């Protein structure tokens, strides 16, 4: 139904007398209120690329880096890994291939959506999707300490979250309260945030404005699996599940993946040199942002 028809029927229902006016004058009159900006362009989309440098395992000082992206679109923001955004873009065009699935992996399979002071967390463990809601951490303490990052004068704020103390540097000259992961709410864009032990460091490498639509079908950011199950849980419950999952051996993880199909799977692996790998060996202890 066109807009004009809708308006005409609506008006005819409410104001019968008005129907007597020539329809096109009425339509024009009403439509004139529809012209101009639907909303003024006062929330131009922002896209911030953060480099995450992290220590993957608790027993090693080996450091890795990966790119993450934060997009703000009107009142909703999305934070996830660049590879998962790419997966989402590919799935809009065609079904994902095996090569693409293997090449676009992320160290953690999560995304975070924020609206106002609330956030929705979405993570995939194996083939199980988990989601929960929580409040955006906002109990920042502002510290009067200046620093210069990429030409921007930045100030410092600290917050306790997830069992860690986080130090953030925000730029008041970039007036947006955005930040990576679950962090936001400072009077300026967070350009750098790290925990006190530097196990997780987010550094902004690019801030651009433009049009960046967000796909709110979160399943489309991950490799599809038949019979995707989404579990709604509480935050603490999820962290326990995640920790238990990370402690499963390779064999246990694969069995869990195939539970639904009634198959009992046992994995044995052999390297290029003929050496065998123990798939029942407990994995190394992983570092997570929340302790």
């Amino acid at each position, binding site marked *: 139904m066109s807009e004009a028809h809708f308006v005409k029927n609506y008006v005819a229902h409410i104001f019968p007398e008005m129907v007597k006016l020539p329809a096109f004058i009425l339509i024009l009159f009403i439509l004139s209120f529809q012209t101009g900006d639907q909303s003024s362009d006062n929330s131009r989309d922002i896209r911030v690329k953060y480099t995450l440098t992290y220590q993957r395992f608790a027993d090693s000082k080996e450091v890795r880096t990966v790119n993450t992206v934060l997009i703000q679109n009107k009142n909703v923001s999305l934070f996830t890994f660049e590879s998962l955004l790419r997966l989402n873009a590919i799935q809009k065009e065609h079904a994902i291939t095996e090569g693409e699935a293997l090449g676009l992996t992320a160290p953690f399979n999560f995304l975070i959506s924020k609206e*106002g002071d609330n956030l929705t967390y979405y993570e995939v463990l194996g083939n199980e999707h988990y989601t929960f809601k929580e409040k955006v951490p906002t109990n920042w303490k502002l510290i009067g300490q200046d620093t210069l990052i*990429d030409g921007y004068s930045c100030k410092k704020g600290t917050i306790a979250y997830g069992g860690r103390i986080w130090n953030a540097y925000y730029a008041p000259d970039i*007036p947006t*309260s955005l930040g990576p992961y679950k962090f936001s709410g400072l009077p300026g864009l967070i350009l750098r945030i790290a925990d006190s032990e530097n196990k997780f460091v987010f550094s902004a490498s690019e801030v651009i*404005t433009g049009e960046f639509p967000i796909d709110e079908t979160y399943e489309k950011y991950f490799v599809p699996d038949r019979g995707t199950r989404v579990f709604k849980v509480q935050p603490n419950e999820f962290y326990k599940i995640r920790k238990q999952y990370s402690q499963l051996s390779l064999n246990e993880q694969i069995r869990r993946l195939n539970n639904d199909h009634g198959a009992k799977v046992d994995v044995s692996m052999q390297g290029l*040199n*003929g050496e065998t790998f123990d798939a029942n060996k407990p994995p190394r202890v992983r570092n997570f942002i929340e302790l």
Partner: protein
Amino acid sequence: MIARLNYINQNFILMTFLLGMSFFVSAQQVSISGRICDQNNEGISNAVVTVIRSSQDVEIMAYDHSDSEGKFSLMLDAQKAGDSVWVVVKHLAFEPLKIRLAAKTATRVFKLSPRTEVLDEVILKSKQTFSVRGDTLTYAVNGLKRGKDISIEDVISRIPGVSISENGQIRYFDKPISHLYVNGLDLLQGRYSIATRGIPADAVKEIDVLKNHNHERIAIGRKSSEAVAMNLKINEDEGVFFGSATIAAGTPVLTRQIEGTPIVFRNNFQNISLIKHNNIGISYRDLNDNLISESSALVNYDSDETRIVRQPLLMGSGVSEKYWLNNDSYAASNDALHRIGDSTMVKWNVSYINDLGRIRSGSSTIFTGEDFSQTVENDYNTKLRTQVLSANVQQEVNKRNLFLKNTSNLSLNNEDGNENVLLNGNPINSDYEFQNFKFSNGSDFKIHLGRSKILQVGLLFSYLQSTEQLEVQPDVFSEVIPSVTPAENTTQTFKLSNLNAAMSGGLNFSLKKMEIEVTQNLRYRSDNLSGGLYRGMVAPQAQFPFFGDLDYRQFSSSSSVKSRLKFGKFNTVALMVVDYESFAVNENLSPDLAIRNNFLFFQPNLSLNYRVNRNWTSTSRYSRTNQLSRLPDMLPSYVLVNYNTVVQNQLFINQVATDALSHSLDYFNLLTNFSFSFAGIWNQSRSDILLSSQIDSQGFLLTEINRARNTTLSRGVRASIGKTLFSKLKGQLSYDFTAIESNLIFNGDFVRALSNRNTITAEMYWDYRDKIGLDYELQASFNTSRLPSTEIQNRMFFHKVGMDVYVSEKLRVNGSLESAIALIVGQDRANRNTIANLSCFYKPSKKLSANISAINLFDVRTFTTTFAMANTVSVSNFFLRPRQITAGLTYAF
């Protein structure tokens, strides 16, 4: 009824009280709330609202951001707020609004106006500096480079942990890198400084630091490695042909420098050519130096260039040779690499160096004994011309299950020089000649035998021939060296021929969690060293002990087992080497001088590394090594080593056994680039030789070798701390203490000398927004030479300060000062010298840069340094080049 009324009254009083209290509490806080909207009254979300005390204040009293309807709410402490506050509203798409409000609870609407200037699409684009992927750190050149960097070597020096020495050797945390690749190919091997100094900084996109690197693919995943390599990735848009060229000229007439480095890079072919000439104090003698540590098992068995006579000294210390070296240097080389398929490479290289160096210097050396002290004054005019022609061909097959490499080398070396000396006021002229021819061929073969087993075999063959001659006028050591007729000169000659063959076999395998490497090396060496020392123009009939004809045969067998084990936080490396050496040495001019001797050594080497936590590691090391006399040490005839020194050895094989123990604690945080290390070192060497030296009043030194047990003890501590913030800031501070106790006999007295050396070095550079740059280096040495009854202390302070001022993006002015203070404590004066330089650089484009430089602006004539060792302390003066002004152009094509 009355009870009910009382109950009602009580509740009423309680409610009134509570309401009153809440009013009282809220009166301590001020609430400012409201709505942010645009000119059309539409709510603006995500605007940042802050409250400050005054319009210039930066401390935020309260802040909030607007919700989807534009609403916000702030709470302020009434006492802190005072009478009024400033509310600042900011949003990316709108002009900021700053308004003063009375500090009382209020609800306001703030209307924002759209920005008058169009918002940039790119608000921030960081110069991403590095990323990590496994063992590879990748540094973006744009994030490291400063405006003044010309070659890629300037950029590499900014990588945290990297230091680059004067000859271009790159060290990563004090360990020389094993390979420098360009686009993944190892064109130059140990001569990589040609690439690092010839490739323009703007031609390289990224630099990879490859830790735990295995060049041989057969070893990847099968054998651990602690080697570090680097890879330069050339910009894709650089094209097939590029490089750099420099030309400079100036005064004194005609100071000049010409350099060209054309480079060709294709997928399967790389070529770097080099042509250079200068007379501005840059020597090319080190151009063919091997800057990498070879991994071949036979590298220790290659023949050394054996020299008996000391070549003329072209050495100044403390400051760069560009200040004191008068030179005329030429060099040309070409390196090419052809890749065939994915795994086969052929490389070849030809180079020629012709380097003439001259220096004027003087020294005052104090020799001390128990109850005497003697000073020897030397003034030198030294000249040395070095010519080297070398050619090298290498074939390499580098596959997953097979590695094969064959290298052939040919080199011709010619040196001739002269030292014109005033020794304690007496003039002496000394002419020196050296020629050397060497051919060698080495092969390495490795094959994978299944699981993690690797079998390796190596072969080495070399032939070397050299001659040396030293002629001194007037004749010297006449009381020692006989002559039937009056002589006007003393001559020393040597001729050496050497044949060397070695082979090695080894097996790498894993046993449970342990990596084991077993090797067996065999070597056979045959030398003939003949020479004569005589006075007069014609050599007399060869007679021992002034003539010698030494036949030397050595057979070596070395068996080693190396194991590497990681358990928990410990990482151990244990090596046991069993060496068998067999010698047969004959002095043909004195048949009773012959030795046959065999040695068997057990040489353990243990390293224990403990990873305390993510950033701290602790390492302990112990090693026992045995060294035997080298061929020149075995010459039993008299040898004129230089114009004022004669040495006579004894024909026996000295064994030096050294025990070394060290412990270190290291901290390094990659993310904050902060490092700290502390180490304690203890070394003890025991040998069967004691040097006995006699010096006469004219400064001539006669040294004899006595067979006597001799122990040298060295102890030290080393500490350093460093912080890097990529191109913005780098600071390094270190302290080194070493105490050495040694024995010698000097002028008939037994001397137990103790040398204490304390050295502090500091290095810092700081860059402020590419507008000002500051470099500072300090080296302070405090040395003491102590004998039982005497003590000499000397101090040396060396500072280097440089400042860059960027007048504009294209124009930079640099000023620098290098100064030194050298003194011997107790003497009247300290020697102070300062050299000042001024340069101006103009870089109108990425490819072209021009410069005008004034070196030694105040025309300082001499530079003084001091050094102490055992029972000698010397103060050296170097005559500097006169003030030099040059103008130059560098073009990157």
